[in-house]
């Protein structure tokens, strides 16, 4: 079985590597992929949305529909893990057979974490807010925010972290994020535009349509950050405790 798989995989791999001779050269500026849509985005995106980071502009505006469902994917994963692992309180007593043991309190780790968490969160907020002008945006910022909570749970323990960031709050934020994203789309629909057409917000906010795109993107990035933060933390909670939220790593 293993030999057969290896043989098939090598055969398929050799064929696929052979097909690369038909592909345009690596780094060719004139290749179809680098010239057609991409040229339009590079030339027009800044003019049409006033967002210099082209990746953010395309991600949150031109292909904003994709990004909404990407957020939904994250939300869905969080719910899926929760549905699969989490058990009601009564039954789980002997669920986790083997649990990593923690010995004593690590003062160095705890103090380092205490020093790091606040700057991490500040940096995450910067990444979210400054995503229009520099690399970053809702996902990256959200992941860093989530990671700061994971660090808290790793350095201290799960119980004390959960006292600060309650389980229900985590779920609420994850739903809220998607709702912010979809809500911005629905309001532009109500305002007479198409779904996710941020230009429709211009009249409501009293700004030009180009600026409305920029603000709309900021709004959806915040929504994305909420969901990603909550779900990253929730994934850690469930996977590290085996679903019973008693004790982490």
């Amino acid at each position, binding site marked *: 079985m293993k030999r057969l798989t290896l043989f098939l995989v090598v055969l398929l791999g050799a064929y696929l590597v052979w097909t690369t001779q038909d592909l345009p050269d*690596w780094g060719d500026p004139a290749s179809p992929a680098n010239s057609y849509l991409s040229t339009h985005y590079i030339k027009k995106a800044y003019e049409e949305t006033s967002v210099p980071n082209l990746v953010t502009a395309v991600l949150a505006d031109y292909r904003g529909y994709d990004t909404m469902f990407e957020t939904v994917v994250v939300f869905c994963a969080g719910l899926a893990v929760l549905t699969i692992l989490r058990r009601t309180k009564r039954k789980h007593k002997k669920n*986790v057979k*083997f649990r990593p043991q923690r010995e004593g309190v690590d003062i160095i780790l705890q103090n380092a974490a205490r020093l790091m968490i606040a700057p991490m969160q500040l940096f995450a907020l910067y990444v979210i807010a400054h995503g229009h002008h520099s*690399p970053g945006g809702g996902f990256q910022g959200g992941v860093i925010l989530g990671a700061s909570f994971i660090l808290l749970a790793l350095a201290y323990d799960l119980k004390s972290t959960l006292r600060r960031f309650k389980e229900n709050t985590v779920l609420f934020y994850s739903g809220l994020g998607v709702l912010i994203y979809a809500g911005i789309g629905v309001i532009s629909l109500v305002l007479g535009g198409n779904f996710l057409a941020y230009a429709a917000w211009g009249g409501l906010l009293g700004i030009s349509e180009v600026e409305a795109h920029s603000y709309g993107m900021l709004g959806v990035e915040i929504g994305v950050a909420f969901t990603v933060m909550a779900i990253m933390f929730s994934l850690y909670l469930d996977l590290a405790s085996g679903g019973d939220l008693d004790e982490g790593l």
Partner: protein
Amino acid sequence: MNLYGSLLWQFDLLIIPMVIICAIAALTIRDLLSATVVFGAYSFLMCLLWTEMLAVDVAFTEAAVGAGVSTILMVATALHIKRKSKD
């Protein structure tokens, strides 16, 4: 032979074998915790590779998600199960 003036293609040639070695190592190491850590290294090298190809946003995300959160999730799972693997 036109290499389109890439500044860093030598760098590229250097990282790619390392990425492949990490990928193979992550699949062959028998200790699952080590395998997940090697997988974290793989993600990080991938992220370097993408930075070198100027995909800064993607590299940033991969540094946070791939090398960070996914590795933590895998370590969390590896600690919950028997650490030795048969292959």
